[in-house]
């Protein structure tokens, strides 16, 4: 075990997998940085510092710095994947799926199916997502639910450095396209990461972060830490919460969710995206349909309102879920009918 930052877990895992498998290729804007400048390559190593040293180690054919052309980046990842490579494409902000969704949704996600299963498409799209930086409406979104809605994609939402390592390695070795959602506000988070260079976490296995019998709190990405804080606060009052980190939203660990709700009978879902047709309502519907008999209270979602992400500190703060809002929701479901 070593104590590393979330961002370094991203970098180190890719680096090691690139050493291990020469088919792993990285591409994106400024993933090298400094190309065509007096300062020269590696001036930055990724705008999020997640590819430092890659260019030096693996050269321009495996660390491909691209123009600002997201459709070409994701499309190229598709072509690389169909040609036997394992591309890892970086979208500097998840919001940029807007300019390349076709390549994600209609191409990469569908090749295997449209081609009758005769090909695999091991492409990873790293999406740096989420709010917390006052980056406003076009640089703060959490399109996890939108991507989860798309058949053919696997969607991964790590919340800790260890999960980054285990899930990213799994993603790189997976034969299906994977959306890897990295929360920008978690990049500085430190945590223990196993030293094992084969450490993988299978998809579809949620993580129980807190255990309790009164309520189930479902969360992913940055919402996990908030849910934990809320749970800790509630614990002081003797309220026990199962906090479940989904880890992957597609596949979804339905079993872990349903097992917990069968015990608690009450569920609060926390999500960073607006409420409509979201991951939050997806999970509420899941428990409503499949754990109906166990439910002692309506499943409740804690999400931002149905608005774009606002800029100002006060506004973004009011917009986002937080431990207080989660706690309030838990108290609401606990108060129901009792």
């Amino acid at each position, binding site marked *: 075990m070593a104590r590393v930052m979330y961002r370094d877990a991203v970098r180190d895992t890719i680096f090691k997998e690139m050493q291990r498998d020469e088919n792993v290729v990285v591409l994106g804007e400024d993933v090298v940085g400094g190309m065509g400048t007096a300062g020269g390559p590696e001036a930055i190593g990724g705008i999020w510092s997640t590819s430092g040293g890659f260019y030096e180690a693996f050269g321009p054919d495996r660390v491909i710095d691209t123009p600002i052309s997201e459709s070409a980046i994701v499309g190229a990842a598709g072509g690389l994947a*169909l040609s036997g490579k394992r591309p890892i494409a970086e979208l500097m902000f998840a919001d940029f799926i807007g300019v390349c969704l076709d390549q994600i949704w209609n191409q990469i996600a569908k090749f295997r199916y449209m081609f009758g299963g005769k090909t695999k498409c091991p492409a990873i799209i790293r999406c740096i997502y989420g709010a917390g930086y006052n980056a406003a409406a076009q640089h703060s979104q959490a399109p996890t639910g939108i991507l989860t809605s798309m058949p053919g994609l696997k969607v991964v939402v790590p919340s800790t450095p260890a999960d980054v390592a285990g899930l990213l390695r799994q993603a790189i070795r997976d034969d299906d396209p994977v959306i890897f959602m990295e929360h920008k506000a978690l990049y500085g988070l430190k945590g223990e990461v196993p030293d094992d260079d084969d450490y993988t976490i299978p998809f579809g296995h949620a993580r129980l972060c807190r255990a309790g019998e009164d309520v189930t709190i479902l969360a992913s990405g940055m919402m996990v830490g908030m849910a934990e804080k809320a749970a800790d606060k509630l614990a002081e009052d003797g309220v026990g919460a199962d906090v479940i980190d989904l880890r992957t939203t597609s596949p979804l660990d339905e079993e872990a969710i349903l097992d917990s709700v069968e015990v608690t009978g009450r569920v609060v879902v926390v999500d960073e995206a607006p409420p409509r047709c979201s991951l939050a309502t997806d999970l509420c519907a899941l428990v409503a349909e499949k754990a109906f008999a166990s439910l002692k209270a309506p499943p409740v979602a804690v999400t931002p309102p149905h608005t774009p992400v606002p800029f100002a500190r006060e506004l973004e703060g009011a917009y986002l879920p937080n431990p207080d809002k989660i706690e309030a929701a838990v108290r609401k479901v606990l108060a129901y009918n009792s």
Partner: protein
Amino acid sequence: MQLSRDDLLQAYRRMKIIREFEERLHEEIQTGEIAGFTHLYCGQEAVAVGVCENLTDDDKLVSTHRGHGHCLAKGCDVSGMMKEIWGSREGLCKGKGGSMHIADVDKGMLGANGIVGAGAPIMVGAALAAKLNGKGNVAVSFSGDGACNQGTTFEAMNMAVVTKAPAIFVFENNHYSEHTGVEYAVGTEKDIASRAEAFGMKVARADGTDFFAVHDTMREILEYVRAGNGPAAIEFDTERFFGHFEGDPQRYRGKGELDRIREERDCLKKFRESVTGAKLLEGADLDKVDEEVLAQIEQAVQDARSAARPTAEDVLEDVYISY
């Protein structure tokens, strides 16, 4: 370049297979037996074959909604394709893709594509893979005159230049995107190749109804790209004999236009005249091919008609599912 007798016969056979495949589909579609949208390639055969005769299975190709010709030229199985178009589970894509999504990755055919402009970026990825493999292979995309207005196509061209990818952008200018004329939609007096040129690419232009012009141009460009000089683009002037899709009333055509292009711009006719005129092949050689091809197509249709149909369970296969 002087082609051998065998080469010539093979080229002719491939073009003829495409032609008859499409002419037959045109008939079969009227019967209502074939589902979905079908875009016929008839008229453009010399481009697909002239380009692909220069490629190997290790060279990759990405195609369009009008993909039958490219698939056949790249070596996809005639029967497998016919079955796919018929929606059989024995089809090349098990009946899941249909006309617009035929692929055979083993043959280097990375798929027809229903999204106009989507192919070029994918092709650049395949070219980058080829570059990485270092064996001198290339990747080729076909794009229409309409597709050359889609942002993805431009991005792909610039990206290929930046990354020096062994990528060849083949533009088939058949003068129409759906019902719109190229004069309108490519809003410039400059041609499509000029756009590629502005990205800093080597470009070439040729008559796409002349197999030999296509073949030679492609050969030259291919040598340049295989040698590691970066990407290139070719614009071929060609003709589409049928409507945009099957059912298109084609009111945008000029009077007599269809007759004229069938008469003056038929690549198969031109090929025949050229090789028999130059005494490279006899008319009888070609007639024999014609006969064989007709029989092959007839057989493929019979096969497709009687091939196994997919079942409801098949829906859930060939994709990762969890819900």
